[in-house]
């Protein structure tokens, strides 16, 4: 009796189980699709989730990233040893050239100070630097970002400029308490107003999720040559003007490719700079001032 009942149960249970499994699978696939849709049209909840998860994972990433950095340091040491003679020669020549530049720069600096005094220019030396370690270099075919180990509590704010060893690399676009995410200039969603340093041609630089960025929205008939330096233009107020970004490497049908000065793969530390421009992006001047007043009252200043 019992046997017959259990065999009947098995006969029903097996197809039922596979049906349930199939529905679970379909349900999960559908929820993945809806997550993608949600992220495309209203990214706020998704961004919040990302911030939370990054916050939780940051200590783990930090622990894992240390051995990786150590190994790469040793490899780098060996490579450096083998190049020591070439490097020495190169540096000697570079030093001669730089010494000449130094005299020019000194002269220009004294001229500049004198002229500034004449014109009573108000200096804006309000920038603050925060140095942070790169704990995840999540550059991939689909997104180019970094996670660094400085966040809200260190004074990092969304929109701040991030500078690598030789120039701008991107900006902060998500901040959690102790870590933040940097949108690199090579990401497909990055748009930065730039200038060609030689002839002050304006353009917009965008990423392609490769190691090169490209220039778009150039004025008609703009003459751009390989090895032209690209700097930030400061339009729109997101970046201060004149920060070095990269150099034009090639010109093809699909655009002008720019190689950034900073090599992302070698990046271990970055500087996050607060130029005091960021808040202007989202709130206008008046609101900004009134907000500051409220904040100051709140902390009892």
């Amino acid at each position: 009796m019992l046997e017959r009942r259990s065999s009947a149960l098995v006969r029903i249970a097996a197809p039922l189980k596979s049906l349930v499994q199939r529905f679970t699978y379909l349900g999960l696939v559908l929820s993945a699709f809806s997550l993608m849709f949600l992220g495309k049209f209203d990214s706020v909840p998704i961004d919040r989730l990302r911030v939370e998860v990054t916050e939780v994972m940051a200590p783990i990433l930090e622990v894992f990233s240390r051995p990786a950095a150590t190994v790469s340091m040793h490899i780098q040491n060996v490579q450096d040893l083998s190049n020591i003679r070439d490097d020495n020669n190169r540096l000697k020549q570079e030093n001669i050239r730089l010494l000449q530049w130094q005299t020019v720069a000194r002269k220009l600096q004294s001229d500049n100070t004198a002229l500034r005094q004449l014109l009573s220019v108000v200096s804006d030396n309000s920038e603050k630097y925060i140095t942070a370690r790169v704990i995840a270099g999540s550059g991939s075919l689909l997104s180019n970002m970094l996670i660094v180990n400085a966040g809200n509590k260190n004074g990092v704010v969304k929109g701040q400029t991030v500078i690598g060893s030789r120039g701008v690399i991107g900006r902060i676009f998500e901040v959690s308490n102790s870590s933040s995410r940097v949108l690199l200039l090579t990401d497909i969603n990055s748009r930065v107003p730039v200038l060609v340093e030689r002839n002050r041609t304006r353009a917009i630089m965008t990423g392609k999720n490769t190691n090169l960025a490209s220039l778009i929205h150039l004025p008609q008939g703009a003459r751009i040559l390989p090895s032209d330096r690209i700097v930030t233009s400061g339009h729109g107020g997101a970046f201060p003007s004149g920060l070095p970004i990269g150099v034009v490497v090639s010109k093809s049908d699909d655009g002008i490719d720019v190689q950034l000065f900073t090599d992302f793969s070698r990046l271990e530390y970055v500087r996050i700079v607060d130029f005091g421009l960021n808040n202007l992006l989202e709130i206008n001047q008046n609101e900004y001032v009134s907000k500051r007043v409220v904040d100051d009252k709140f902390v009892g200043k």
Partner: protein
Amino acid sequence: MNIAIWQKLDNLARSFIPFGFSLILVVLSVLPTHIPGYMQIAPILALISVYHWAIFRPNLLPISAVFILGLLQDLLLGTPVGLYVLVFLTVYGVVLSQRRFFVGKSFIFFWFGFAAISMLASIESYFLGSIWNVILLDFNAATFQYLILLGIFPAVAWVFLRWQQAFLQQD
């Protein structure tokens, strides 16, 4: 009594390890490696794990775990959330339906199977990413990413196989 509890704990730990391995692979795939040019073509290592456990022990890596892995991969990589969830679910689903085909075959066959399925995964992520960004992504990078993943596969799969032989009872 005491022994029974320890045994249960031991079994629990063993059954958690496939998911643990996969989590480590997700984290490894976002670490800065400091290798020039590697960043853009860093492979999605967790695909190996999803493929392997879907063939050998799908009960130890249930579909909900696959969903969580994909979600975590998306959140850490900064890819559109849901993209790698879909890719992982596809790989899991396809492998599970063809499971009998893979079991008991040689390692080379196992590797070829991965080549075919991860190609499907690469194409899927390439198209989903392109549609999301409304732009065609760099195809060369996608190809290199795929080739690197294929090259890394034997090393990771070997670790999984050894661990499985040592710690899991045969069916």
